[in-house]
């Protein structure tokens, strides 16, 4: 048993962290957040392409590095810690994984190569309404290769080239399609979101050209598998965020004095940090287990991914809100960076569906078998 990343993976992680510390300051995050015309940090994204990150886990035949999910996990943790305002997750964890899982040879050849080469930004368009999730049949519809309908909120749609879209086909069956976004029948309208450092758009389709991804009627099944995989990677982003928020809170309260001593020396504050640390470590440990399940294609993946996701949602909400609280009044200002993590925590917690959906998946998986092997 070896429940740790390899030396190579740790090296990748520390290099990624170092790179992002230098290249992804909170000022850069704010530049996307505060400028309604910037939809991602293009320079940073370009540098990541130079480092060949988008193709890290894409097979070599498509120009990628052919590395595995564990390398993506350590990268995700670094990205989450730095709040990187780039379409990495949409392009790599979501569109890229969907292509790997369900794309035709030709689709893989064309689009995975473009992702690896840094020529393609992707996004996933599934949510149509309040409470909507990948588990509900969409109202959007494709007839004769033309898509009509709308998606209420699509992260990265403003900067993406290609969208993975859920829609019903002519037989009313839940199906997936690839949609080039740059066509007149697609209207993209920027929307305000809780985390403006990860901009989103509303999409309207009026007979847009699409091509199917995977078999008709298999849409929900493919999305569920893609989301299980993405959940693991998002969990690492969230854990990276927890760690950054906890460090931020501790650093501030070590320096800040009240009643003649560092705020960090008060038991109420120390115990607050202890609770944050416990939540973070539980989330990290569950993310590790899910990383193993993902990398080894284990049957435990649906349970492990949901477990990692639920823990990560809870931990990042706790760490980001209590980091803010530990800053006192200053934490509530726009000027301080506490709300950057608090907003990102909100965004990440609902982006693949909120905690109740994933908790339900945990329960379903646990109760699916009669033996209590996980217990």
């Amino acid at each position, binding site marked *: 048993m070896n429940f740790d990343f390899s030396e190579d993976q740790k090296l990748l992680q520390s290099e990624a962290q170092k790179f992002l510390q230098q290249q992804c300051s909170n000022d850069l995050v704010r530049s996307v957040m505060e400028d309604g015309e910037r939809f991602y940090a293009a320079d940073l994204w370009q540098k990541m392409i130079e480092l060949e990150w988008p193709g890290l886990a894409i097979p070599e035949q498509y120009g990628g590095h052919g590395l595995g999910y564990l390398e993506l996990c350590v990268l995700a943790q670094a990205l989450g810690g730095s709040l990187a305002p780039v379409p990495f997750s949409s392009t790599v964890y979501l569109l890229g994984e969907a292509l790997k899982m369900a794309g035709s040879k030709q689709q893989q050849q064309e689009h995975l190569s473009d992702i690896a080469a840094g020529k393609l930004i992707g996004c996933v368009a599934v949510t149509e309404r*309040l409470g909507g999730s990948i588990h509900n049949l969409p109202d959007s519809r494709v007839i004769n290769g033309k898509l009509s309908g709308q998606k209420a909120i699509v992260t990265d749609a403003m900067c993406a080239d290609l969208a993975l879209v859920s829609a019903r086909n002519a037989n009313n069956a839940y199906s997936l399609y690839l949609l080039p976004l740059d066509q007149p029948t697609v209207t993209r309208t920027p929307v305000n979101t809780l985390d403006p450092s990860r901009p989103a758009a509303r999409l309207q389709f009026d007979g847009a050209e699409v091509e199917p991804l995977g078999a008709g009627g298999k849409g929900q099944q493919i999305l569920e598998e893609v989301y299980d995989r993405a959940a693991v990677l998002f969990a690492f982003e969230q854990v990276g965020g927890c760690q950054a928020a906890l460090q931020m809170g501790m650093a501030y309260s070590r320096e800040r004095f009240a009643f003649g001593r560092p705020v960090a020396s008060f038991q109420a504050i120390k115990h607050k940090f202890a609770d944050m640390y416990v939540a973070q470590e539980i989330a990290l440990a569950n993310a590790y287990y899910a990383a193993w399940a993902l990398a080894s294609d284990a049957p435990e993946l649906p349970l492990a991914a949901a477990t990692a996701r639920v823990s990560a949602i809870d931990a990042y909400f706790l760490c980001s809100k209590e980091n803010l609280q530990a800053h006192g*009044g200053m934490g509530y200002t726009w000027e301080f960076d506490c709300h950057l993590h608090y907003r990102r925590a909100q965004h990440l917690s609902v982006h693949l569906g909120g905690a*109740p959906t994933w908790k339900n998946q945990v329960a379903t998986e646990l109760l699916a078998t009669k033996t209590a092997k996980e217990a």
Partner: protein
Amino acid sequence: MDFNDTPEQAKFRAEVRAWLADNARLPQAGRLVRDMHLRFDEAKQWYQKKAAAGYACLDWPKKYGGAGLTPVHKVIWSEEVEKYTEPDDYFVIGIGNCGPAVMHFMPEQRRAELLPRMASAQDVWCQLFSEPGAGSDLAGLRTSARQSASGDWLINGQKIWTSGAQNSDYGVVLCRTDTSVSKYKGLTMFVIDMRQASVTVKPIKQMDRGQHFNEVFFNDAHIPDENRLGEINGGWEAALVVLMNERMAITASVPDGFAEFLKFVRRAELAGTPLREHPLVRDKLAQWYCLHAGVKASYYRLITAVAQGGVPGAEGAIGKLIAGRMNQEIADFSLQLMGEFADLHEPAAATDDGYFQDAILYTPGIRLAGGTDEIMRNIIAEQVLRLPQEPRVDKGMAFEDIPGG
């Protein structure tokens, strides 16, 4: 134990009800105006109107612009006026916090000059206590007041979290007048004229993009000695009077998000299932209602105690402690239920005018403003339960010798 009015109270309620029907505006469809600046002019007009009718400052003496009535009359007024959309609590900081300080510490002539104008909102007041380095540890403040040969005072330093400073005519300011004694002993409280050039007000942008608070800078600002509130170096005792009244005001007013959650549960469907039928949602609804109802009933107990001649204690901290956390939890829980759609922060697109999206961004402030959760627990532990203080490293130390970050 009853909730009925006495005959005298019933008569008062009837009068109030009739006057409001003629003079107050009913809520309109659409969104509540949450921005304080937009409400400022409305608020000034409303206060002058109610002052003219004799309904300002119900529990103040008549000679100071009040109505000479009791806290129970204030409750009756609140119950009636909350059916309307008037900004009836807008100047609560000046009237609720600064008013009692003026009444308590100033000579009769100054009271008569200042208070009626405050009651009718001719003059607007703010409270200048917190500083960048003195929040939870308020007595660690550094803004200095030096007395000149003439006896007047020169103020230098910076305050923060001052609501309404940009619209204020006067402020009650707490300053350090002696650094060579322990921190509680070298403070003095004053009334300052906010309209002088040496006072600069700079709004603070909050994380939710609102700007309800300000930084205030004093650069040789001037205060005549007649504006001193209480003794030189007796400012801490004076500040406690203000803080006690602040807490009483807070008890009744911290938004807990329950009404919005109930509305959401009543109306929303998620993926075709009404929320009202979902056992997990019902469980949360019940749990939060118990807290909501408990805080409300606690407030009735407090009002009854005050009406019977008691002094409001630190019990008000309960309401603030519960409401802040609960509102944040409600917002988070509701957003999680909505799924990815929750990320949409557009009033027109999101549910219930985007209440929960707004709330997730403003509730962190509730847990900080007017004392953090941690300070509220300290207050309950030390002032209500009388548990022993922690060891104080700065105890008895001259202010200038206390370690600072």
